[in-house]
């Protein structure tokens, strides 16, 4: 099972740090908000993250100034979120 990176759009302010750290996974839209590359529908809010990107995803979660990101390890159901 792949982990997923959840974007809480109600918190996200489009600062763009996540798109820098995860440039293979996220790009920025016209207004600076993250868009998951090549994903459609719900996978744009709960973005699948490959094992290679997990470390960067953890960093994005911990550095997001708006606390808008959380990582869910689908295998265990655990989630990591900075509060």
């Amino acid at each position: 099972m792949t982990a997923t990176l959840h974007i809480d759009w109600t918190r996200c302010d489009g600062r763009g740090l996540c798109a820098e750290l995860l440039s293979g996974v996220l790009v920025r839209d016209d207004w600076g908000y993250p868009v998951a590359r090549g994903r459609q529908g719900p996978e744009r809010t709960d973005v699948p993250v490959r094992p290679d990107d997990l470390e960067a995803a953890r960093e994005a979660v911990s550095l997001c100034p708006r606390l808008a990101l959380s990582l869910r390890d689908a295998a265990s159901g655990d989630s990591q979120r900075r509060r």
Partner: protein
Amino acid sequence: MNPVSGELRQASPPHAQPVSRLLAAGPEAEYARHADTFGHLDPDAAAPGLLNLLEASGLTGRGGAAFATWRKAVATSQSAQKRLVPVRPVVIANGAEGEPLSFKDRTLLAHAPHLVLDGLLAVARAVAAAQVYLYAPAASIPGAQRALAEHPGGRRIQVVASPDTFISGEASAVVNNIATGSAIPLDKRRRLSDTGLKGRPTLVLNVETLAHVALIARFGADWFRAAGTPQDPGTRLVSVSGRGPGRDVVLEVPGGALLTDVLQSAGMDPATLSAVLVGGYHGRWVRPAAHVLAPNGPVGQVVRPGAGVIHALADGQCGLQATAGIVTYLAGQSARQCGPCMFGLPAMAGVLNRIAAGEQDPRLPGDLDRLANLVTGRGACHHPDGTVQLIGSALEVFSGDVRSHLAGRCSAVGIWAP
């Protein structure tokens, strides 16, 4: 009480002709007439086995999403039981009707409030709820208060007013409003059935859904399935509009009804209509063909009724201008908390307004496509996706109008001045 065969006409609010299932007790039914018509329902007697009965009935939510009612109820109940410290759930009857073209819920609350309360109390008992709410627009509250005062279980139910905003009825906005007074959607990282109002497992059900529950609890799943189709059992209320002021009607139609039949029952000749909006502002424009009104099925044959909105494009009205007006409204109704919605909806409204106004720039439809693709799937609620669905259907159904507009003509308005 007879099962409904075919759709039955109700007069528009405030008065209804009682021939249907849900409105069988007649206009503004007080408790005595309600009990005479349907019989008394004891929630304690109805609760055991109710969720199994709902599963057998195939009842789906009538608030728009058409999710299986029993699944939501079971998820809430199980979530409450599997906690380390068991916690009792919350059940909320959702009567918010922010959709401007919908009026079936307020009609139901005005005429059959006791069915809604019966269903609410039976479900609340079945999931062992600690708290029970009725969430409804301010205009429906005096009637609801009268009904609560008469109803044997009315004292258990707390009433909360919903604001008249488009998204006030979205389930997480309902929970948020009851908790904080702010009717804006919440992030969906966790389900409401796991953690909703004050962290309790929370079940939000549309008021019409609850009225069906009240009838299923009395008359059973087979009775419910005697109307509709195996795939879309039972009946649903629809709000039909578009023929001008005073001609709006609420109809109760069987599942799987044909759009053309429903239009005829509402006094319209489908042959004279150019397009019909089905499912409301988050729905789709379709040609008035024999589409089946049902929550599931192949696009092209089936059109989703959503919360039961059916609106005919008026004679001489331009579908693109109508849609541009709706999208402008929807952009204004963004809660402005999710960026792609806050910026994307006004951007789409802007492009659509330019097409509607006859700006001859061939790049506009492509811009609209690109923006629509950008906002989908990126919000805490369905508002951006619903708006994109509406725009997509407009570009498809009014594709001829788009070409005309880009060439400086409009079939409704004529030719724009150079």
